[in-house]
């Protein structure tokens, strides 16, 4: 094993990751997301891959502090959203268990180490499947739909920092967002909040009509995926 193997492993990991995202997005990946995901994947992937290959060099304190710093913010907001009942715990549980199993792998001997990595990936695969079923949870897909939804809406309208309420019920509570857009699907309504910059970027669409169109498109897509699953 050498650095070439590490790079190859990470490259394969990224390939799988983007393949799943491309399936959700039907092929569209924007550079800003590419850079973001690439950097975050490398940040998470490099130390765990390195210590898996050179377990004798493992520094426990560094390892723990590093991952608390890198993963802490993401985990904190996921827990916060869960506690606030803005989203179900499913995606949090899937990704947390997946990541934990992979992160503990350098501490284990063969063949337990391979089992740990395998189980971790199985949970991560579950997380990606969940993302595929509820594509609005994927910021890249949401960003794309958000732009398309504004296409046929009247433009040059006024902006308000107050969220728009769309009276469409949801079976599951979920929370998502992308740069400048925040969506909260509740049991009785959907809340669409956008920043002034985001509104401006879309050409200042009519906020009510835009929010209705966006929620409609998301709901239609979720229905399609659910139909696909039930088939």
């Amino acid at each position, binding site marked *: 094993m050498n650095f070439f193997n590490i790079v190859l492993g990470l490259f394969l990991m990224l390939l799988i990751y983007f393949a799943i995202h491309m399936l959700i997005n039907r092929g569209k990946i924007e550079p800003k997301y590419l850079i973001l995901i690439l950097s975050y994947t490398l940040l998470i992937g490099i130390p765990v891959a390195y210590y898996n290959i050179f377990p004798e060099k493992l520094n426990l304190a560094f390892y723990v502090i590093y991952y608390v710093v890198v993963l802490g913010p993401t985990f904190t907001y996921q827990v916060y959203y869960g506690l*606030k*009942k*803005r989203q179900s715990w499913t995606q949090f549980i899937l990704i947390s268990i997946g990541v934990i199993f992979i992160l503990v792998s350098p501490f284990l001997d063969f063949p337990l180490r391979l089992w740990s990595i395998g189980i971790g990936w199985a949970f991560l695969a579950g997380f990606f499947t969940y993302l595929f079923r509820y594509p609005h949870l994927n910021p890249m897909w949401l960003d794309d739909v958000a732009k398309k939804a504004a296409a046929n809406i*009247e433009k040059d*309208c*006024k*902006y*308000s*920092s*107050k*969220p*728009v*309420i769309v009276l469409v019920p949801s079976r599951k509570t979920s929370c998502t967002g992308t740069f400048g857009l925040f969506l*909260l699907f509740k049991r009785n309504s959907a*809340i669409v*909040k956008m920043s002034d910059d985001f509104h401006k970027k879309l050409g200042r669409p*009519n*906020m*009510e*009509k835009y*929010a209705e169109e966006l929620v409609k498109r998301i709901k239609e897509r979720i229905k399609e995926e659910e139909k696909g699953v039930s088939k």
Partner: protein
Amino acid sequence: MIDLIRVLGSEHIFEIIDFLKKTPDQNASFIGNSLEIHIITVQRVLDTLEKYGFVKSKEKRGIGRPSKTYSYLGGEFKINLDELFSGFDLKNKTIREKGNTEISFSYDVDKEIVNAILIGGKKGKKLKISPKTGRFLWLVPPPDSKGETIESISRKASIPLIDAIKFFLEMQDLEVLEAIK
């Protein structure tokens, strides 16, 4: 005027006025403790009576926060029914947000209420809103929308129609909301 009518019709009004007539220069806390009425209720009654000139207040400074003491003045007031019910015509008016660039909102997406209005940007004036009217404001449709009637929004927000109309008029003056012609 509706606030005065409400206060005059409230449960403890006679006890509070009687107490104040007999023992002037007392603060809301003392009156509340003596009559075993919640201080917020006493304060609301005294504030409204003071607004219409039936009691006067004096600021008392000492150790701790300054407090206000009240004395009974008495007097009379006339009810102008035309004025009182003039706003009620607005119940069927379709309203929406005005989209004033000087206004922004502080809100709670979980409770689904607007907590405050910020006039003149984040460093501007902050106007706090009660949870009930905050719920009403939360449900008001955005700018350039087809709008919704005050009656319909007040029903959804579970607030009395007259309070919703009064709140709308205040927000209209601040150019936060507008009626669609």
